[in-house]
């Protein structure tokens, strides 16, 4: 008893001042979540530094009439001239139209190919492992390497594509792939589809493997044929995965820069100039940082709207 009496008073006075010193008792149940915030803080600060701060600078710059800028330089007067110029610029609307066309064409083609190949390699057959490898291969090839390969395939004078078309008798003369607006758009779209469809394929495959086999067995008992099983079981069960995949694919097409820049630079006659290419050109070729920031901000808003619409829609239409 005596021992207890002597130990207890000596323990309490030592620990109490320590708590008061830090002012934060993370052991208390009501404050345990604070530890989570503390652990997250470095990551949040880093993200704020490398994403939110530049975003803020970009938005701020879009409301200034600036060319080349220097960090820390005095702020120019507030103006909406960049947005006014943007709205009245045919070049901007052309870039919006090209971006939209590219999104529609590339996303649809990626989904048709991706879902098709995903379904194919989900079946059991000899050489399935190799087939899966080939389906995923374009995804693994670095983008810049893929673009250089396609640049040579579509080369107007010495490319494989022209040789192939002439040998097949599809054309009489060579196609100037990067000097003709329609051909250039097609070349860019094909390259993007080749690079982008494996992602859809991999996501589809992952989604297919999570569908319980019982669903198909029950459908077979009810006499459903393959097409009915696909429409009524596979597709609805894949919808959550496909919805997210579609958003990611659209955002990828929106953002992609290197494929277009290396293949066509946005030409000819701006036929492949998307909003990302326009932003880059205005900033680093024409040194119009304010105007480029305005294009960037509009692109960001469009991306947010598109992803919000897609995520909302796919979430509602699942089960």
């Amino acid at each position, binding site marked *: 008893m005596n021992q207890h009496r002597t130990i207890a008073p000596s323990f309490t006075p030592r620990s109490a001042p320590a708590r008061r010193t830090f002012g934060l008792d993370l052991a208390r149940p009501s404050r345990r979540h604070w530890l989570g915030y503390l652990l997250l803080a470095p990551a949040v600060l880093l993200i704020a530094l490398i994403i939110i701060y530049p975003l803020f600078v970009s938005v701020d710059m879009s409301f200034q009439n600036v060319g080349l800028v220097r960090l820390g330089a005095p702020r120019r007067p507030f103006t909406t001239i960049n947005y006014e110029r943007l709205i009245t610029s045919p070049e901007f609307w052309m870039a919006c139209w090209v971006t939209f066309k590219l999104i529609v064409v590339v996303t649809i083609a990626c989904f048709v190919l991706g879902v098709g190949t995903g379904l194919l390699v989900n079946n059991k057959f000899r050489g399935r492992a190799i087939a899966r490898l080939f389906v995923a291969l374009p995804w693994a090839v670095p983008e810049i390497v893929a673009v250089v390969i396609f640049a040579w395939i579509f080369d107007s*004078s010495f490319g494989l594509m022209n040789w192939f078309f002439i040998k097949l008798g599809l054309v009489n003369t060579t196609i100037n792939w990067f000097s003709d607006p329609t051909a250039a758009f097609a070349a860019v779209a094909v390259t993007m589809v080749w690079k982008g469809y494996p992602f859809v394929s991999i996501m589809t495959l992952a989604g297919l493997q999570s569908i319980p086999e019982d669903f198909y067995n029950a459908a077979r008992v009810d006499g459903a044929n393959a097409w009915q099983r696909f429409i009524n079981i596979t597709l609805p069960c894949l919808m959550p995965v496909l919805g997210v995949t579609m958003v990611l694919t659209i955002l990828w097409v929106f953002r992609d820069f290197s494929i277009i820049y290396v293949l066509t630079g946005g030409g000819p006659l701006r036929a492949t100039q998307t909003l990302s290419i326009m932003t880059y050109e205005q900033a*680093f*070729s024409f040194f119009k940082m304010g105007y480029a920031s305005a294009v960037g901000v509009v692109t960001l808003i469009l991306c947010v709207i598109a992803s919000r619409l897609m995520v909302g829609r796919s979430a509602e239409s699942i089960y």
Partner: protein
Amino acid sequence: MAFNGMKRWAVGAVAATALMAGSGLGFMSQAFAADKVLKFVSWQKDERGVGDWWASIIKEFEAKHPGVKIEWTKVERGAFADTMTTLFAGGTPPDIVHLASFEFQKFADNGWLADLDPFIKKSKLDLNNWAGQEKCKWDGETVCIMMLYYGGIMAYNEDMLKKAGVSVPKNWDEFIEVVRKTTKDTNGDGIMDQFGTGHETKGGGGQYLAEMISYLLDAKASFTDAKGNVTIDTPQMVEGLRRWKTVVKENLTPRDLSAGEVRQLFADGRIAIRIDGPWLYPIIEKAKPEVRPNLKLAAPPFNPPLGGTSNVLGIASEVSPENQQLAWDFIAIATSDQFQSTFATLASSTPPSPRADVTEAKKTTPHFDLLIETQKAAAKAGVDRIPVGLEIQFNEFAKMIKEESERMIIEDLDPAQVAKTMQAKAEAMK
């Protein structure tokens, strides 16, 4: 247990020491050895000839300035403008500023390049008759030193010309006849695989403009006059555009290739004539053994010949006065008679200095007289692809010229109509 623990500790200590010796200590020793580091960013670091010349200047500078090191970084030409803009915008510009002659104006206009006049005066550097130096004046101040003003050369494949039964062209009419006769489908697969000439028709506006300018100059056309007034809508420009359209529309040049690819095709024996700057020669030298003897050089068939400013050196205005002085010392070495002479030998190019001794270069580069001749002819005619009065808007202007020229070719437009459109758009840019 204790022994194992000690062993682990010892191994860890050795590893840490090795790491420190490899990286940390290495860095520290460098920092102690060099009290000061000057930053120099260039796209020419790995270029054969000219890269060696820059290396020799750095060596000389470091020998003359013990304790000062030059940190020489290579940035690809394609990403150079972006990188330099970012460095300046972030407040960390290189001390020695290397820029292309068509891009320094934006930096100077922004006040990012120091006035070199006090340094020039103090060091008594004579820039009279320095080729292209007048282009380095900005708002009455000398903001850079011209490092190359070149004259164009015509390289041709003698064997191709012989087989086509034509001789080396001396004017536009002969040139177009030669390129038409040498453009062929040699293996009969329905695809042209040999071209009369070669031009970059892909890529940036600046290079596109450089490719077409020979035809415009020969037709006596210019984008602006000496006062900076736009002079595109003229019969001379219409004729120049018609010539460019003929060459591209008739597929007398391979399409959609970069200038580098075109040069390589010439070296591979697939192009009969290539009009280019002095940098074509090192590529010719590396041609296949069976092609190399056929590749010859001559004066371009156009008058005035292709030519113009290439690149400049300057000093960042916001670095410390001490660093500015050191950067000037670097420029002083590069512009000295001795190093202007070695520029001719190492880079096989015409140095801008009139005092450079090119005797050695004439021995090592057989066509050096031709380079001097075309450089002088181009300089005399004031040839430059950067139009007076449109220096700041050059990239935008070049893009516009490229687009309208492409439209002329794709939509088969009348060059007269295209010249009118270009005139209106160029005037709107000013």
